[in-house]
């Protein structure tokens, strides 16, 4: 027993000097089955439930356009893209926000919104496909969830949401509301990093090529956003989409690096204009 207490004291002595800091789980310990099941239904359902909350807030701020013809068109383009290149376990929803602001939102769980202001700026279907593809890739890459994870005081957003959704106490509901607010605030005010946006642009371009659309059209759309910023028209856009200039340059360089400028593709200008023209 003397030996034992000697060792015990030694250990306590050494580790009383260690400061307690919030630690992250050791990722390398995760076994194949942990990683595999992280991507299955349970996690997806939580993501969808969370996304609905944020979407409801977006719709609380901007009215939803109930023009069935336009919505159906956007939805078909969007669903067609997501069916081939989106996350297979999600169903994606595409809505139009009735506002002149030029913006688009991607919400975890598969909810994508584009504003009328943005649609009015587009010239053809390839540009619309590009914007939708850009938003799709935010959801696919889980940029938003990752960013929230960094800001949230919880160690893991998914487990945090899980605990909160699993519980039915008022405290839990309040916590869920706070998480939702955080996500909404971020979408409206802060936005994602320049790098994440540029990454989404690149992924969108690859998707356009895969689908046979004209990649140059998307670059032109980014170009067309510039004057609107200069005039101060798209205030929200400038806050949540860091310099369009940076994105334009990054994308141009990406196209050049991978020799994608020679690729031709469809624009479907007539079909686009026909739907958008109707009041």
């Amino acid at each position, binding site marked *: 027993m003397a030996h034992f207490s000697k060792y015990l004291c030694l250990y306590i002595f050494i580790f009383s000097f260690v400061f307690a800091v919030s630690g992250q789980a050791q990722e390398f310990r995760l076994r194949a089955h942990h990683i595999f099941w992280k991507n299955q239904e349970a996690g997806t359902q939580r993501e969808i439930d969370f996304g609905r909350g944020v979407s409801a807030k977006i719709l609380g701020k901007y009215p939803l356009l109930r023009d069935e013809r336009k919505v159906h068109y956007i939805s078909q383009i969007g669903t067609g893209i997501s069916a*081939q290149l989106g996350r*297979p376990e999600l169903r994606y929803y595409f809505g139009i926000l009735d506002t002149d602001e030029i913006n688009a939102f991607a919400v975890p769980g598969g909810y994508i919104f584009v504003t009328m202001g943005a649609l009015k700026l587009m010239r053809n279907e390839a540009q619309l496909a590009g914007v939708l593809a850009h938003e799709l890739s935010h959801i696919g890459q889980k940029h938003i969830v990752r960013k929230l994870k960094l800001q949230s005081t919880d160690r893991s957003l998914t487990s945090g949401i899980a605990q909160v959704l699993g519980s039915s106490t008022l405290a839990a509901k309040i916590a869920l509301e706070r998480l939702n*607010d955080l996500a909404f605030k971020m979408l409206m005010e802060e936005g994602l990093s320049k790098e994440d946006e540029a990454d989404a642009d690149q992924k969108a371009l690859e998707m356009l090529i895969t689908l046979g659309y004209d990649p140059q059209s998307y670059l032109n759309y980014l170009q067309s956003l510039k004057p609107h910023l200069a005039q101060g028209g798209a205030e929200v856009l400038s806050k949540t989409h860091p310099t369009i200039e940076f994105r334009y340059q990054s994308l141009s360089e990406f196209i050049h*690096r991978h020799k994608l400028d020679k690729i031709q593709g469809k624009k479907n*200008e007539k079909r686009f204009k026909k739907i958008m023209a109707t009041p």
Partner: protein
Amino acid sequence: MTVIHQIQFDSFLVSKKYFLRILAALFLLFTHFVSESFASANTVYIKGLGAVLREQPSIQSKKLTNLSRGTKVLVVESKGIWQKVESGENLGWLLRGQISKFPVKRKKLILGQKIQLQSASGRRIRLRTFSAVIGVRGLVDSKGKKISPYKTDYVALEWLEKQPSDEEISVIFLSFTE
């Protein structure tokens, strides 16, 4: 007599040790090589409704075959936004956006489950009702401070979710070229 027993005892133990060591070495070798050839990092799946396998990493290159959703392929080489994959007898190039690191379920099953997710479970209804209440009255905590300053509109969200959508028809709609 004692001496003889001693020797027998030692050699018996030694041969058992030797045997077990060989077994261990073989097993370690096995797992190492097996993990190399089935390297999980290189096994990927085709996502979406299908992908086109091409001869060369270029959009104008000849189409070799179509790979359907969920097909398991092995990545052999990468070049820019293209990946060279092997699937059974086929070897060709795919755009990397069409690949998923995680297994993809069969489409019908997923749609079925998605529909199940949408038809409001009891919990979902409670959440909606609660959040709608927040939206109207503005939830306050015990100190009287407003918890969520943001308004919500679940009615609009539900209208959006009720809109018809069909993956196969949408893909056909998308493939139209003027």
